[in-house]
């Protein structure tokens, strides 16, 4: 009797569970009339201020269409989105870091992205950004990113107290770092735990390689030279290692994350930090005493004095061609790119001073305008040389390995060449045949 009762109870629970599951799925399905669009992105793909999420809630109130954000750590998203796209499980809207060279391979837009060429908003994006979100003369992505420049931000008070000036050569960089370290302050905040940050000095200073030896980018793209032959790049890697060994990144810096950089810089534990324009706003909002206490200079690794400009490099939104709700995706894109909403995205972001929509007034301060006037500019290596950007995270691991003593600069360069050859082979690049 007891056994029969238990079996009956178990059956009842099972059937109830199935019914409830059915009811639950009915609520979220199209049958209820409410559409949910999934939006997959890396952490840095959308503003950390949460403005996109706030606007998405308003959009839901206006239209009934919910945007469900799935935010994944940066280090995982690059790989994850490729697998999701290939397995047909990509979100309705997905962010991918774009540049003209790797976007077609990473997104395979003809198979995976909704064609936005004929949308009114596609014609309003800046000419500079369009090649990074286009393929075969068709526009596939929507970006809010500015052309990206990474500067070294420094603490003016610390510099003034130590009587030091922003460096223009590596030797000066090293000398001021030594003085800062002597005060028990971390000279330069490095963040290998995030996987990508430590790679920036190698390729953001790419214009310097091109400036020193014109034609370098072309030769690399035509497989007429190896990355291992790029002596200036090797110098930069060796200098990074020297900084690590001299303690200029701090003790046990291998566990540092990019996210914690603002805190270290804002609390004056670190005197220098590699960031993009707008950092002043983000730091001073969290640490008001830092207002007007921040200056910047171009990164002097390898005696570089050229500003590296990345026309893409940041996330762009793509609509999933295989989404069940392509029309809703397009409607959301049209809404978010309305002039007033673009302004809100710009104003509500972390503090970017430009946006790739000419109709939105940039907020560049005179400091930046003057600085850019006095320095040459060039395109960063990852946006101009093939098969660098797709292996960014691998290079990051190699550099961490070098910091820990497991690899040499030469091995890092050889690995870069090896991975370039692998990808060229997969993509059947004629220059590598």
């Amino acid at each position, binding site marked *: 009797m007891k056994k029969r009762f238990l079996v009956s109870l178990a059956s009842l629970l099972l059937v109830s569970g199935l019914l409830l599951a059915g009811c639950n799925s009915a609520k979220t399905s199209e049958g209820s009339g409410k559409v949910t669009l999934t939006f997959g992105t890396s952490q840095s793909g959308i503003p950390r201020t949460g403005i996109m999420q706030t606007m998405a809630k308003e959009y839901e109130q206006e239209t009934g269409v919910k945007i469900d954000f799935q935010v994944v750590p940066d*280090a995982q998203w*690059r*790989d*994850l989105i*490729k*697998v999701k*796209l*290939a397995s047909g499980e990509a979100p309705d809207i997905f962010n991918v870091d774009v540049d003209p060279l790797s976007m077609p*391979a990473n997104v*395979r837009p003809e198979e995976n992205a909704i064609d936005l060429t004929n949308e009114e908003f596609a014609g309003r994006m800046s000419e500079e950004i369009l090649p990074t979100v286009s393929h075969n003369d068709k526009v596939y992505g929507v970006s809010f990113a500015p052309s990206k420049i990474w500067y070294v931000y420094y603490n003016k008070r610390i510099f003034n107290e130590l009587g030091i000036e922003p460096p223009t050569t590596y030797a000066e960089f090293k000398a001021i770092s030594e003085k800062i370290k002597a005060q028990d302050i971390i000279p330069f905040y490095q963040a*290998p735990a995030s*996987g990508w940050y430590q790679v920036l000095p190698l390729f953001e200073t790419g214009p310097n390689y091109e400036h020193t030896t014109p034609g370098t980018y072309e030769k690399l793209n035509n497989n007429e030279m190896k990355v291992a032959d790029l002596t200036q790049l090797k110098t930069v890697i060796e200098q990074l290692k020297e900084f690590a060994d001299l303690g200029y990144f701090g*003790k*046990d810096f*291998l*566990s540092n994350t990019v996210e914690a950089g603002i805190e270290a810089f804002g609390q004056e534990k670190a005197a220098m930090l590699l960031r993009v324009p707008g950092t002043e706003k983000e730091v001073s909002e969290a640490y008001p005493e830092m207002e007007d206490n921040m200056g910047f200079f171009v990164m002097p690794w390898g005696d570089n004095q050229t500003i590296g400009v990345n026309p893409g490099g940041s996330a762009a939104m793509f609509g999933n061609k295989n989404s069940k709700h392509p029309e809703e995706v397009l409607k959301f894109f049209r809404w978010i790119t309305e002039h007033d909403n673009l302004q809100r995205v710009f104003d509500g972001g972390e503090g970017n001073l430009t946006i790739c929509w000419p109709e939105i007034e940039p907020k560049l301060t005179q400091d930046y305008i003057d600085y850019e006037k006095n320095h040459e500019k060039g395109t960063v290596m990852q946006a101009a040389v093939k098969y660098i950007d*797709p292996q960014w995270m691998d290079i990051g*691991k*190699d550099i*961490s*390995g*070098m*910091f*820990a*003593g*497991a*690899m040499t600069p030469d091995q890092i360069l050889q690995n870069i060449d090896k991975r370039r050859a*692998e990808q060229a082979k*997969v*993509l*059947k690049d004629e220059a590598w045949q």
Partner: protein
Amino acid sequence: MNANKIYPWYFSSGAIVLYLLFIVAPALLGIYYSFTDWNSYSSEKNFVGLEHFRTILAGDPTYLLFIKNTVLFTLVTSIAKTVLGLFLALLLVSGVKAANLHRMIIFSPQVLSFLIIGLVFKSLLDPNNGFVNVTLRSLGLDFLAQNWLGSLTWAMPSIMAVDTWKGMGYIMVLFIAGLLAIPRDYYEAASIDGAGFWQKLFKITLPMLMPTITIATVLNITYGLRVFDAVYVLTNGGPGNATDVINTAVYSSFAKGYWGLGSALSTILFVIMAIISFFIIRLMNRKVEF
């Protein structure tokens, strides 16, 4: 075939179909893909023969490092979990107070996801603000404070230690069950004959526990060879590739879109596991005789 012989097949056919469909077929497909250049950049799948296997086993020393790390991790954690699990089991069946409470506490990490454990230990082992180093420094033991997950010397031992901590509770429960199944008569007879603790351990307990030790060893080894989450969450294979194992390389290959290569790595792992498991079972599954 008579009705009695058909009868069990009739009942198990559903399970067999599901097993073939969801276990055997994907495994065979995976092996097939390991001989192709299947990748995320093209819809073509060309047969490339043993090319991926050559790359892994002879072409690139990095892959050999991953295999070496996997084997090392498996050996160390298997031995540590077995020895500690057995020690704890002997302790808890010897009449220690609050044995059930201790058993529950030691077993509890087993029910937690490694994602949670990994995040907790990442925080505990943080070289600057982590509990472990802060405690060591506060005790004046600065020289013992290490960059646990960031140094070449300590990263792998740290992962092994965390994994052993998580898994030893499960092995302990297996051993407790095995110990409780040994008839008390043997111990009573041994005591009458004047046998001491060590003699009882080596002459009665361990031989009688051999089936459990076999199960525990196979479980530990197959888990160790398949390890992914512990490494991925704690170090992501770093620093450099110092703690990468076969499965993080599989993940990385699939993530990069090199699916043929990833399948080849999985196939190699499958073969290693099959061979090791076969020999362990053959070696350890002997009949216990007195």
